[in-house]
């Protein structure tokens, strides 16, 4: 319902009063606190419909002021004046507004953010190409700095603030407000927000940042599929790389723990971006040089430790009602079970979904199946090794899991096989049980293959991850080195290593760079 014109005028006058208070010399909080108290007594801070209108009108006044001043003078600082005054008002309200007994001091924050989000969405949908993100960006930057450091005495308050902003940013994600994308990424990665979300609070902030990065990758995915980037997308892509590099450097454990879901949403063509995530390793870990002569990776202590995975690995197979069948097959390995025969079909998308996705296969489902099966096999092996320490090497592999992997590698077509092999290669990371197991599986599938095309594809999946610029995951390097060094794989006698002079040179070059 439209606002009453008298109410609009009242709000406008209040804003003018607040502006005059902001102009007074600093050091005396009394005029501010009195003003806030007055607002409270006028019923404008109850968090109800009237509150919403109050904040919305203030925001609209501030944004329109920005627009007017920018048009007339292009003076940035003066055009932000109203936005700065408004952001200060909200900060002061949160600081000084009296609250009822038992209420959180910050109960208004999510409501104010909700009003802001709706205003931005409306402005964006109405103005389209004429939408200007800058005043909203300024507003959020001010708030992140001021409200973000409000009352650092209370950890819980600090997390409330961060999660409120994280929820707002999720609502403003690029898929929903595309013209806000650049401003959005700068806000999400800002030093007053992203590091705070990842530090302290018992890592409760981690799922929020995970969700935001997934939002970003989901937006970019259709544009990155074909690896031919226009200038615009390249710009966004480079910005994303910078953010990932900051995370890799300062918070590698975060990338480690969510690698699985990030690989779900990064297209296979983004090899370097994916490698950045897969190269992450815990800061307290020291990785042995993969080119060390006679490196006995099986004896590395870390190889017997499971990585922490915070992504929900079995979500996709659960959603497709596959998990029970997978569990059943792993448990019984029943001969004649239709499970293996039907597996390929179940991994396909419908034609309509495939047209939208640019692939015939359900990539998250393949990823989920591969990692879930591998994790079950590893558990079984570890249980078996505890009870029978002297197991024979042929028993070191859980046969049911191997059935599944072998079925897939034989029956899938080139596209499906590539995606399947990607799912395995995505587990070749820092030393841990998954790296160990999947490295073994990949090499086993290579040696066991009866068709050279399969060996060629395995090689290709490894090679394409190695020929891009650094970083390269440790597990990828040791797997490739093992493949080319171990005479058991007879790698250099495969015809595809010599199919063209350029390819020969490529292999020699990569093997030299691996030491």
């Amino acid at each position, binding site marked *: 319902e439209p606002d009453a014109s008298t109410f609009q005028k009242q709000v406008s006058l209040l804003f003018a009063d607040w502006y005059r208070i902001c102009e007074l010399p*600093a*050091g005396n909080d009394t005029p501010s606190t009195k003003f806030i108290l007055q607002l409270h007594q006028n019923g404008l801070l109850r968090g109800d419909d009237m509150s919403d209108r109050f904040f919305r009108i203030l925001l609209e006044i501030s944004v329109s002021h920005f627009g007017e001043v920018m048009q007339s003078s292009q003076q940035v600082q003066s055009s932000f004046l109203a936005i700065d005054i408004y952001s200060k008002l909200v900060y002061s309200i949160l600081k000084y507004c009296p609250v009822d007994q038992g209420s959180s001091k910050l109960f208004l924050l999510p409501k104010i953010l909700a009003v802001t989000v709706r205003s931005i969405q409306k402005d964006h949908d109405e103005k389209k190409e004429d939408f200007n993100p800058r005043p909203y960006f300024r507003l959020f930057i001010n708030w992140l*700095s001021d409200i973000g*450091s409000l009352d*650092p005495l209370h950890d819980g308050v600090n997390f409330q603030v961060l999660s409120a902003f994280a929820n707002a940013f999720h609502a403003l994600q690029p898929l929903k407000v595309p013209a806000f994308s*650049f401003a959005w*990424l*700068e806000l999400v*990665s*800002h*030093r*007053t927000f*992203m*590091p705070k979300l990842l530090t302290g609070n018992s890592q409760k902030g981690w799922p929020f940042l995970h969700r935001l990065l997934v939002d970003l990758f989901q937006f970019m995915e259709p544009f990155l599929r074909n690896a031919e980037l226009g200038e615009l997308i390249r*710009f966004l892509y*480079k*910005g*994303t*790389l*910078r*953010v990932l*590099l*900051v995370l890799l*450097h*300062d918070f590698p454990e975060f990338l480690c723990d969510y690698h699985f879901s990030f690989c779900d949403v990064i297209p296979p063509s983004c*090899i*370097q971006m994916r*490698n*950045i995530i897969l190269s992450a390793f815990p800061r307290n870990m020291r990785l042995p040089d993969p080119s060390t002569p006679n490196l006995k990776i099986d004896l590395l202590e870390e190889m017997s430790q499971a990585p922490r995975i915070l992504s929900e690995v079995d979500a996709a197979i659960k959603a497709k009602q596959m998990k029970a069948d997978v569990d059943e097959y792993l448990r019984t390995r029943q001969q004649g079970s239709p499970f293996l025969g039907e597996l390929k079909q179940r991994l396909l998308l419908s034609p309509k979904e495939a047209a939208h996705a640019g692939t015939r296969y359900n990539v998250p489902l393949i990823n989920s199946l591969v990692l879930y099966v591998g994790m079950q096999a590893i558990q079984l092996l570890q249980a078996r090794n505890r009870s029978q320490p002297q197991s024979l090497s042929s028993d070191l592999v859980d046969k049911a899991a191997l059935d599944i992997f072998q079925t897939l590698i034989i029956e899938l077509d080139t596209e499906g096989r590539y995606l399947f092999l990607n799912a395995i290669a995505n587990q070749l990371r820092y030393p841990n049980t998954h790296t160990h197991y999947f490295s073994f599986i990949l090499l086993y599938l290579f040696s066991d293959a009866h068709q050279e095309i399969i060996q060629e594809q395995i090689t290709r999946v490894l090679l394409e991850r190695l*020929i*891009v*610029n*650094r*970083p390269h995951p440790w597990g990828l390097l040791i797997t490739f080195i093992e493949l080319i060094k171990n005479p058991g794989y007879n790698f250099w006698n495969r015809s595809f290593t010599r199919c063209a002079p350029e390819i020969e040179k490529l292999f020699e070059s990569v093997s030299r760079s691996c030491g």
Partner: protein
Amino acid sequence: LGIDLTTLGLNLNSSENLHKTFASPWSDEPAKGGPDFSIPECYY
């Protein structure tokens, strides 16, 4: 083939945290000036 990530303007060998001086995803240069320290009101 990806790009040389050392050309993005981040000091990847730094022993200090990068996020402290991360200016923006669109910038080749670090932010100048460091964090906003909060200090007691009496000093303002």
